[in-house]
Structures are given as structure tokens and as C-alpha cells.
């Protein structure tokens, strides 16, 4: 649905005339006139108000009874009073009523000092109680989950947590049990409330009923400082505020930015801060000495690294992991290209020209478009794993704005239940599927590519029909705003065919230059887009310029091959361990083995680095960094340091510029801000950005006409590429992969989250399991192409028979150890 427009009206509150958009909820409209109406249950993020607590009562002229301000929209000429004796009496009565059963154990309550119930009791309560009877008692505190403690005595039954679970994250786990004074919040059968977004209820609860177990009793509001930054643990790049006490991050809170996160966080973002203070952090430079990495001084590490890099010269390749900032990526490519004279740098690992063509500002949808489009197509990505907060945004659009959702994925999606239509294709059939869909929209042969994708032709035609006519109601079908949310992993699977088909699909749906529709990429790693724009891509200089390098510039796979063949001798890893994060772990293992020099910036010694790194520089965590990252929808956001660097860690920009100084080239960088300056100057569509302008909310450059005009037009894409046909199982099973939201070393090293650390599991359809004689929970060996790994069977009813799915990004038995399209499974 297109964004609603509101006309401005005038109403009177406490004798003051106030202008507000029509139908604004009275509580919000009152704020425009500097009048505060106390609320407990009202929270606009949760959708429709429920009017459960009655704290917001106001008097409206012409209506005999007091009205709830949280559920009354303002109308022109409304006259509202919030200060009359009747209102005051009602407010005091509600507070007294809420406190009847409230333990008021503020000194031991974790909410004390930041508790709306305390504030409202002080501000609007009567100050006395007449209740001398015993209060209700519950056993307390209980574990609602390993992350959340619940104190049922303190609950004021505002429904916020239950509404979140039912209407926002739609995990349908929390309910209210019993009636009357005995009512309490819990899960239906008492199992722990474990869900990707469960932590949000801690922040929602207006009292100390739901508290964070990791933060429990750590600090009081007056002991701490808040420090705004951006979470870089996934591409959603939610805005966060770190709670810092004594130079330690103790908590992460959401910092609402409607253009990014809508005020929600996933549990990884909320609790994985603990890894910042993990003992496993690398906090001093390490050097391989006698086969072991040993701590050395900065001087020795820098001198050795500079010497080794100098020796390798143009035989150095650079890889940046997704957690690198734009500045770090920018300096890395300067070091590799300008100083060392090599042309091999990569970050995303897929064809950068494809990404360039699909990142065009006229095709770019913003994150908010997802919420207001007529139709959203989720293509080849699982938002809850790949970009969790996007999942909430899609659900919000479907629930509140009647967005029609279509899901087209190989693996069953958690969005299937909300979708108007779900289409499956076989892993490996990505290119063919997009080709078939484009043909169905645009005209052309659908049957052949659909068969090659292992997808149902009729389903593809229905999907095309939905995309083409999703704009009107059922009688009056019209083309509408379509947002295609696509995973950049598609390009890795069958890059050549996906890009031209996707571009054609977008123009067939008239998405070019359209407000409210377009493409939205879901990258495989946090700052994939920013690194691409900063020039960390083979053959593309910052801002998609020309590098002027002669010969071939290797991308990720090419670098691995060249290292194995001895064409390249050294590798510079910025926040990356290719064995963990890149496809073909076996090939990478041999490449790193063969490389004479591996210089790495790392926070943690993952297996690949422990085995193969020559020099390891301690890297900053996201709470210590300064710099910028770019959101998948083009919003440049700023990271700010919340705490001091751990141990002897030094900033990456300093290390990169110091190395280049030692190699005889001065980058001219003395502070982090100077690196940002250089980046903004080098990228034409970042021109005019400053750290100040980016500020706390970020700047979406595709929305700025001048910046969009400065975007260099991508070269014509090759249209003749043939799609690949998905492998014929022939008794074996097709292998698809996915990366769980809980994958990542940060989860493993955060004590609160370790229980969620994923272990390898193979998802399959019950039919396949029966055929193979395995059951849910069995240990099996998955083998393909000479390699094998162990996994636990997970049956999914919605999975299409013939395909199985394994996880990547985990520390042991990861799917990138199998470089095969088909696998065999047998009992372990």
C-alpha cells in the first residue's frame, strides 16, 4: 500500500491550539503541544493500541466519559483536557490500582532508575495507598529463557510483550495465563521463550518484570554511559546504543531509526556484545615463530609484515571480510593497489559488475519501501537468517499495510506462513528460476528454464501474475509498487544468468526510477555494499572507477587458485578467515598452506588463522571502531567508539597507513576522520558527505539526486549467458546451503548466547528421510565429491524432496567443506 498522507488539523489541548496530522493518536499529538500524557501499554511500534492499562485517560469535550488517549485519533476542532480534577483523580486511581499488587521492591529491581512505573507513580500518582491486605505472590525470579528473567509479581499486565510475540515477531510463544490477579505471562507449555527477537521484550516491558539475565544487576542508570553506534554483526546494521560502565560494554539497546531498524534488535545484536570482552580476543600482535604464533611487540610485527609484503610485492592479494568498515576497505585497496602494485582485492566474492548493475540508484528500493509496497518478493534469501530485522519489516508490511508477500526460495522459508504465495526451486537452479520468472512476466519461454530450475511452471506463472497485477484490489488489478528483496548469494550460485534476468524483471515490472518500488539486496556479509563502493572489488576502483590495471584482477576464487598455483605468494586478510567464510574450504586450506605470507587483522584466532597466519594484528571490535559502513539500501552510517581498545589493539587505519609508510608511500592519514575524508573524496556519489552530516541517523545517498547522478553507469550486462541446470539427483540429493542467524564466532564466545551455537544439521524432506531410513535427530554422514561431514537430521515438512540443506559459517563441519552439488547421506 502506498504511504498514507495526512492533512494537518488543529485541536486544542489544555487551552493551547496545536497543529497535528489528522488521525494521529492523541498521546503523540499532545507531544506536539508539549503536553505529556502518561502511558504504559501504548507503544506505536507494536501496532494497534489495545487500551489495556487506562493510564492515558483524558477528558474530551462533548464525550461524557474519560477517553483513553492512546486509542483516540485526533480530529479537527477536538478540545482535550489533561489537567482537570476528573483526569487527575482518574490517573491517581489507576496508579493506586496498579500498585495494589506491585511489590515495589525497587532497590533490588533491575528496572529501578529507568522505570516508567516509578516515574509515573511520582509524576501522576496519589502518593499513598489504602491497600493493607497481603499482595499476591509468585515464585520469583524465574527464567523465561536463558536470556530473560521474569518476575511475575511486578507485571502490570500491559500486554506489550505478548503483543510483540504475537503481532511483531509472530513467533506466537508468549501468552497470558490465568485470569484476574492470578494472570501471568509465560509460554503456552512452559518451554523457554527462545526466538530470534526475544530480547526486545526486555526493552518493551515498562516495569522490571522482564529483565535481561546477562545485564542483571550489572549497573544502575547513573553508573553508566550510553554510546550510540551501529551493530555490524549482520547486514541489517541496526542502530544501537552501547551501555558502558567502567570501560566495559554491559548491554546493547536499540536506537530507533525508522529507516533502518524500526527500533528492534535481534538477539545476536543484543547479546553478542559479550564477545568484545572475551578472553579469546587477540589483544597483541602475534608472529609465527617456530610454527607457533607468539606475542611480539608492535614494532617487530610491523617490521616483519612490511618486510614480507615488500618481498611479495605484486604477488599480494587482499581479502576484506564483511565486518570491515568502508575506510578500512578503502585503505586496504590503496595498500594493495597503490603501494604494492597488485590488482587482486576482493570482498564480496561475486562478480562486482553484477553487483554494480543491480545497485543502480534508480532501481534501489529503500528499507521503508518494503513496508509500503503493494507486493514484496523475497527471492533466494531467508531474511531471518541473513538480515534478521528485515524479517520484522516484511511481517509488519503484511500485517499492517496488507502488502502481498511472495516467497521464492530453495529452502523453506519462515515467511511462508505470511506469504500469499511461496514457490520452491531446487538449489543450483537460481539462474534458471529467475530466467523463468522474467519470461513469465515479460514473455518468453517459461517451461525450459522452469524445468532447469526444478520449479513448478504454474507456480511461476501465478507468481508473475501476482507481481504484475498486485497493485489493485481483486476486481481492479493494476501494476503496483513491487520490491524485490533478493539475496546476493544468488549471484554466487549462478551469477551470470541471475543479473540480466533480474534487471529485465525489474524493467518488466516498471521498477526503474520508481518511488516505492525497486530492488533491495540482502548481502551475504555486513558491509558488502560499502566495501564494493569503496573499491574492494577486483578491477573496480573506489566509486566503480577504473583501476587502470593491466591484466586480470582475481576475485576470491581466482585468488585462491593463484595462491595454490604459486602465481600469488602472499595474502592480506582484513577481518576475514576464508576457510570459515568463503566457499570451498578445502581449496582455501591448500591456498593458505601454499602462501608464504598471510597477514591478518583479527579479533579472534579462528582455525584458519591459527594454522596459517604469519602475522596477526589485533583488530578492533565493533564497539571500539570509528568509521562508516553502508547499509544495503545505500544508507551510509557511522560507527563511533564506545569503549577504549582492548589490550594493545590499534586501529586498522593506523596499521594500514603505517605499513604503507614503511613500504615507502605515505597515505597522508593521521586520524580516522582523515581516512573518511579521503574515502568521501574518492567516491563520486559520496561527495559532500561528512561525518557530521552522517551523524547518528546516516545518509541515504541514492535518495540524493546529486549523488545518484554521480553514480557511474554500469557497463551493459551480458545478455547471452545461459543459466545452469540444477543437478539431477539420480538417487543422490541436491545440496543447498544457508547461514544461520546464530552462526558466527561472536555468538559462540558470548556466554549468554553459547547455548544457541549452531551445530551442523541437515534439513531434509520427510520423504527423503524415509527413503534413506533416517529419522529426525539421527546422526548422519553427508558425503560429496570426496569430502564428508557429520550432521544431525532435521526434518522439515515444507522442504522439497530431493534437496537437502547444510549450514555454512559454523566452526566445525561447515558446509563449505563440501564443494559438491550432489551429496549422499548415510547413517553415522
Amino acid at each position, binding site marked *: 500500500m502506498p504511504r498514507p498522507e495526512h492533512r494537518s488539523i488543529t485541536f486544542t489541548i489544555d487551552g493551547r491550539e496545536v497543529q497535528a496530522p489528522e488521525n494521529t493518536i492523541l498521546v503523540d499529538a499532545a507531544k506536539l503541544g508539549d503536553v505529556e500524557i502518561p502511558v504504559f501499554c501504548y507503544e506505536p511500534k507494536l501496532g494497534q493500541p489495545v487500551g489495556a492499562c487506562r493510564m492515558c485517560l483524558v477528558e474530551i469535550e462533548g464525550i461524557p466519559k474519560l477517553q483513553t488517549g492512546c486509542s483516540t485519533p485526533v480530529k479537527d476542532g477536538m478540545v482535550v483536557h489533561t489537567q482537570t480534577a476528573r483526569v487527575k483523580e482518574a490517573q491517581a486511581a489507576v496508579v493506586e490500582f496498579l500498585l495494589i499488587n506491585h511489590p515495589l521492591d525497587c532497590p*533490588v529491581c533491575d528496572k529501578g532508575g529507568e522505570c516508567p512505573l516509578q516515574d509515573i507513580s511520582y509524576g501522576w500518582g496519589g502518593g499513598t495507598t489504602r491497600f493493607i491486605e497481603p499482595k499476591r505472590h509468585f515464585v520469583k525470579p524465574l527464567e523465561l529463557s536463558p536470556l530473560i528473567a521474569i518476575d511475575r509479581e511486578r507485571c502490570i499486565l500491559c500486554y506489550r510483550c505478548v503483543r510483540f510475540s504475537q503481532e511483531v515477531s509472530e513467533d506466537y510463544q508468549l501468552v497470558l495465563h490465568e485470569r484476574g490477579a492470578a494472570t501471568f505471562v509465560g509460554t503456552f507449555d512452559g518451554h523457554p521463550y527462545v526466538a530470534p527477537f526475544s530480547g526486545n521484550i526486555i526493552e518493551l516491558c515498562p516495569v522490571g518484570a522482564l529483565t535481561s539475565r546477562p545485564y542483571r544487576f550489572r*549497573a544502575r542508570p*547513573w553508573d553508566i554511559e550510553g554510546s550510540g553506534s551501529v551493530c555490524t554483526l549482520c547486514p541489517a546494521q541496526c542502530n544501537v546504543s552501547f551501555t558502558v560502565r567502567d570501560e566495559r560494554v554491559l548491554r546493547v539497546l536499540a536506537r530507533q531509526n525508522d529507516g533502518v531498524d524500526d527500533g528492534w534488535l535481534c538477539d545476536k545484536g543484543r547479546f553478542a556484545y559479550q564477545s568484545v570482552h572475551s578472553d579469546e580476543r587477540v589483544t597483541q600482535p602475534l608472529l609465527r615463530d617456530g610454527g607457533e604464533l607468539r606475542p611480539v611487540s608492535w614494532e617487530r610485527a610491523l617490521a616483519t609484515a612490511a618486510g614480507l609484503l615488500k618481498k611479495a610485492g605484486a604477488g599480494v592479494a587482499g581479502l576484506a571480510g564483511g565486518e570491515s568498515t568502508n575506510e578500512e576497505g578503502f585503505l586496504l585497496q590503496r595498500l594493495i593497489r597503490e603501494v604494492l602494485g597488485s590488482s587482486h582485492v576482493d570482498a564480496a566474492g561475486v562478480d562486482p559488475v553484477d553487483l554494480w548493475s543491480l545497485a543502480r540508484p534508480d532501481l534501489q528500493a529503500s528499507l521503508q519501501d518494503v513496508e509500503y509496497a503493494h507486493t514484496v518478493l523475497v527471492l533466494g534469501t531467508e531474511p531471518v537468517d541473513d538480515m534478521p530485522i528485515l524479517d520484522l519489516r516484511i511481517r509488519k508490511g503484511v500485517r499492517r499495510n496488507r502488502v502481498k508477500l511472495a516467497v521464492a526460495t530453495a529452502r523453506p522459508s519462515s515467511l511462508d506462513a505470511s506469504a500469499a504465495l511461496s514457490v520452491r526451486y531446487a538449489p543450483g537452479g537460481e539462474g534458471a528460476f529467475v530466467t523463468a520468472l522474467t519470461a513469465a512476466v515479460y514473455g518468453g519461454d517459461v517451461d525450459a528454464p522452469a524445468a532447469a530450475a526444478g520449479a513448478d511452471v504454474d507456480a511461476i506463472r501465478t507468481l508473475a501474475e501476482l507481481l504484475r497485477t498486485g497493485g489493485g484490489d481483486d476486481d481492479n488489478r493494476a501494476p503496483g509498487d513491487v520490491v524485490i528483496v533478493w539475496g546476493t548469494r544468488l549471484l554466487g550460485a549462478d551469477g551470470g544468468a541471475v543479473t540480466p534476468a533480474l534487471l529485465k524483471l525489474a524493467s518488466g515490472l516498471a521498477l526503474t526510477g520508481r518511488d516505492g518500488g525497486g530492488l533491495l539486496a540482502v548481502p551475504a556479509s555486513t558491509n558488502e555494499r560499502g566495501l564494493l563502493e569503496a573499491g574492494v572489488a577486483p578491477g573496480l576502483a573506489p566509486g566503480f572507477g577504473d583501476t587502470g590495471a593491466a591484466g586480470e584482477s582475481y576475485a576470491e576464487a581466482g585468488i585462491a587458485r593463484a595462491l595454490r598455483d604459486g602465481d600469488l605468494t602472499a595474502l592480506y586478510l582484513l577481518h576475514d578467515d576464508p576457510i570459515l567464510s568463503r566457499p570451498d574450504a578445502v581449496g582455501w586450506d591448500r591456498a593458505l598452506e601454499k602462501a608464504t605470507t598471510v597477514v591478518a587483522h583479527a579479533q579472534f584466532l579462528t582455525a584458519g588463522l591459527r594454522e596459517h597466519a604469519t602475522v596477526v594484528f589485533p583488530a578492533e571490535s565493533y564497539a571500539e571502531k570509528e568509521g562508516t559502513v553502508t547499509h544495503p539500501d545505500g544508507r551510509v552510517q557511522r560507527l563511533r567508539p564506545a569503549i577504549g581498545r582492548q589490550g594493545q589493539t590499534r586501529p586498522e587505519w593506523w596499521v594500514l597507513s603505517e605499513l604503507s609508510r614503511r613500504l615507502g608511500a605515505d597515505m597522508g592519514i593521521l586520524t580516522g576522520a582523515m581516512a573518511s575524508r579521503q574515502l568521501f573524496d574518492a567516491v563520486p556519489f559520496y561527495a559532500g558527505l561528512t561525518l557530521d552530516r552522517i551523524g547518528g541517523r546516516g545518509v541515504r545517498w541514492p535518495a540524493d539526486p546529486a549523488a545518484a547522478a554521480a553514480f557511474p553507469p554500469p557497463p551493459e550486462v551480458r545478455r547471452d549467458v545461459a543459466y545452469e541446470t540444477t543437478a539431477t539427483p539420480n538417487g543422490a540429493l541436491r545440496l543447498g546451503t544457508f547461514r544461520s542467524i546464530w552462526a558466527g564466532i561472536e555468538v559462540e564466545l558470548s556466554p549468554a548466547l553459547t547455548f544457541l551455537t549452531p551445530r551442523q544439521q541437515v534439513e531434509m524432506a520427510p520423504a527423503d528421510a524415509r527413503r534413506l531410513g533416517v529419522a529426525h535427530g539421527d546422526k548422519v554422514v553427508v558425503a560429496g565429491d570426496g569430502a564428508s561431514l557429520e550432521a544431525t537430521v532435521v526434518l522439515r515438512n515444507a522442504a522439497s524432496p530431493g534437496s537437502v540443506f547444510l549450514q555454512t559459517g559454523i566452526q566445525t563441519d561447515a558446509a563449505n567443506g563440501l564443494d559438491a552439488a550432489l551429496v549422499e547421506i548415510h547413517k553415522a
Partner: protein
Amino acid sequence: MSWHPGADQIEVMRPPAPGAAGGTYRAFAETMRGLKTTFARVIEGVHTLQYPEQKTPVYPRFRGRHRLHKFEDTGLEKCVGCSLCAAACPADCIRVVAAENTPELRVSAGERYASVYEINLSRCIFCGYCEVACPFDAITMGHDYEMSDYQRSDLIFTKEMLLAEPLERAPLRAEGE
């Protein structure tokens, strides 16, 4: 740079020097007059205290060095680590880090206890706000005033020091004293 007085000459005016008679009067008669005052006071009795052997007694509401308290019956600490004293302290000299009681380690009566409780007595202004803020009467201003030390860091009193009985008690002023 040398100083040039310039035209500002300073003239010093002196009284005339006393003659022989005047000098003699000053040396004997005036001295005797002073001694008269001295001996008159000696018979008045002793006014000073022999500190540190003798100590000034304090009033019951004297605000001296803080004390933390335990329940007499259970031996549990009264402090629950709520940090309200730290919030009230205008000198910002109290640091509380709370932790959770477990069945194995029960320190206080509530859910939480103070795992770290420190007062920096070199900054404390003995205003007593902490005592007023405490909801459990866990912290009170004691009568101790002997707190000088050689190191500033020794003036940071830990929870153990605040819970312990003072080495020597300051005497309390008796009724009507």
C-alpha cells in the same frame, strides 16, 4: 631583567628609639605583666586533651566514617547493592557493583547484594546523604574520625573494612556533657 624603582621611592617611618629608662621598663615590667596572665590561667585548670591518648568524645549524631551493617540474627548483610547511596552522594565517592545471590552464596537478604562496595573517604564530605538514601539502613555514618593515612589509595574503604568493627571506637559524649 633588573628592577628599576624609577621615581617611586619608599619612605620608611620609624618611631624614636626608646631611651635607657624606657628600654628597662619594657624588658622587666611588661614581661611581668605577661607572666601574670600566664600564671593566672595555670591555676584555672587543663583545657587541652592529650590526643591521641585522650580523644574528644563525639555527639550521638556525629557524622564520621561510615559503617555497613549486618542483620544480627541471620548474619546477612543489610545492603542489597541498590546503588541508591551512590546516586545520592554529591561527592560521587561511592562505587557499588551488585551481583546476584545464589543458594550456595547468600550474602544479603534480597535477590542482589553488593559484590563491590567502596567509599573513597578522601573525597567524602561527610554530608550523610548516603545514610538518608539507603532504604535498608545498611549504611550509617559512624563515629570514627581518625582516618588520616599515608597513601590516598588507602583511603578507599572496601566493603570488608566498612563491615568490620572499627579498631578503636571513638568515645561518645555522655548525656549533658
